[in-house]
């Protein structure tokens, strides 16, 4: 019971710090919205395969349907369904990217707590050391999922169209994002525990954020990538969370249960690994010599 109290008060501290600074909330949303808007509207990948009407009018109907079936099979191969527009595709990818950016910054909090002496005060209290980590992870999960939901609403307002796999689809998508947030924030906190200064922590996270985004299927399908990049993308946990969200919210009837299970298993495995590492480091690093 005591542990629950500790985790609750520490989580509430994190969340209060977050929602009391609206600037922070807006700022963390700006980047994904920019990516979504700029990439989604400018690099309209699915739009390349759309034939202008004046050309369609000049073609015989048989040719038109032939071209259409070729293009549709290409679209299906890359995007899972032929009638998907790129903006919807990328905006669902951006949900995981919001989780990525938010979670990766959570280790900075522990570096700051150390620097400000707050960590020492926590360590002098009779609390379970894991509470310090668990509360940061929990707060990050709540923040990430709320921000992702806001982003989803923004995407809908900007014209995205989804085909959710009802009734469980949205729930599974949220679960995938939560698990991803657990894994990434545990990783970030583990780094924060080792690196000690928030400057080096920020440097590491900035170094990782963009490569993790670009080397995933968040912006474009993995099958469009060269083989070496495909290997990286398939090792990237972001890809699995993104795919789980697309399977459940975008593909509708075309969703593949086996793939969805693989996605969820991969994200869970990643999260379990880094949670274990984070908890272990909390035990050793926070127990000073």
């Amino acid at each position: 019971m005591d542990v629950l109290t500790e985790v609750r008060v520490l989580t509430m501290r994190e969340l209060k710090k977050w929602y009391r600074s609206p600037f922070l909330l807006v700022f963390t949303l700006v980047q994904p919205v920019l990516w979504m808007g700029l990439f989604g509207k400018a690099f309209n990948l699915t739009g390349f395969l759309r034939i202008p009407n004046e050309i369609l009018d000049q073609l015989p109907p048989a040719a038109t349907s032939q071209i259409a079936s070729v293009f549709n099979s290409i679209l299906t191969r890359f995007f899972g369904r032929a009638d998907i527009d790129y903006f919807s595709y990328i905006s669902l990818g951006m949900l995981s990217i919001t989780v990525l950016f938010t979670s990766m910054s959570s280790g900075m909090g522990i570096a700051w707590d150390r620097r400000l002496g707050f960590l020492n005060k926590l360590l002098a209290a009779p609390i379970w050391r894991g509470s310090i980590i668990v509360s940061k992870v929990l707060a990050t999960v709540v923040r990430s999922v709320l921000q992702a939901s806001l982003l989803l609403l923004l995407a809908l307002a900007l014209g995205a169209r989804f085909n959710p796999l009802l009734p469980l689809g949205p729930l599974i998508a949220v679960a995938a994002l939560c698990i991803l947030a657990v894994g990434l924030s545990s990783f970030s906190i583990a780094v924060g525990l080792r690196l000690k200064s928030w400057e080096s922590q920020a440097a590491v996270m900035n170094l990782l954020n963009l490569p993790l985004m670009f080397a995933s299927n968040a912006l474009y399908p993995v099958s469009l990538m060269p083989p070496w990049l495909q290997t990286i993308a398939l090792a990237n946990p972001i890809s699995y969370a993104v795919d789980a969200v697309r399977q459940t919210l975008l593909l509708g009837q075309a969703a593949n249960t086996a793939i969805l299970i693989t996605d969820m298993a991969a994200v869970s495995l990643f999260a379990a690994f880094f949670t274990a590492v984070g908890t272990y480091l909390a035990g050793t690093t926070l127990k000073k010599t």
Partner: protein
Amino acid sequence: MKAVEVEGLVKRFGQLVAVDNVSFTVEEGELFGFLGPNGAGKTTTINILTTLIRPTSGKAFVAGYDVSKQPSKVRQAVGLVPQEITVDDDLTGRENLMLQAGLYHLTHEQARKTIAELLELVGLSEVADKRVETYSGGMRKRLDLAAGLIHRPRILFLDEPTLGLDVATRAAIWSYIKRLRSEAGVTVFMTTHYMDEADALCDRIAIIDRGRIKAVDKPVNLKNSLGGDVVELEVVDGGRSVAEIVEKISGVKRVAVVDGLYRLTVERGDKALPLIVEALVRNDVKVQRIMLKTPTLDEVFLEYTGRKLREEAGSWEESFRRRHVLRRARAV
């Protein structure tokens, strides 16, 4: 039972011996001070006693518990107010205390009652629901003091409680420390590098320098150990006779002449002063200036460590390196 009992405590950080075979005891209810310059090993000692770091060797018992073997018992019994201001700017004063109460597993009812009392004690009831970012430095420190007392600890550790505060705020913090000692009845262990602070607050002082304790006693005893007060005397036309006159007065131990100034070492300056003046007047010596100096802890520190508190004797590099190593070790 002693509140704190330390025997042969040693803490090494690599080559550096931060705490070097330190032994002392703190009585229940006492206000005990660790006085020494930066890098003397004060914070390292506090960190060991509050279980933040482990000693290299030696024994330390706090509230009767072994800091190495029963750290969670020790944590329950002590409160720590670190030298940094550790209250959270984004929360209100009350929320900071609620957070602290949660960390010590107080029930909601207990927490509300205790927090109301503590806010009253440190004089922050009025601003309790304002965010800490609007507080002044002194108010933050007071909130930190209250946070350290939330679970009614038996021993409160204050690390440099007035570091970086202005003179008026320091005096206010002192009065709060005295008040919480008398009202909360807590044993206080504090560190400081301000002489006047140790003098004004502490029942007993340990003078610590480069990891070693040089002396432990009441401030007044430490000062008395210097051999008494000094009376400085300037007369209009000096001469051999002045020294002869004052030497005969009871209580005067030594007379020295420095730059035409007579320096009399006396047992009790307040008692000797009238006698000196009277004897001089009777012998028609015109006194131009007379001054009584009671020894300060500054002089005590000089006496015991062979150097002044503020000036770093030895090489500058050595003391810099020492502080640097300690700071890095502390940041673990």
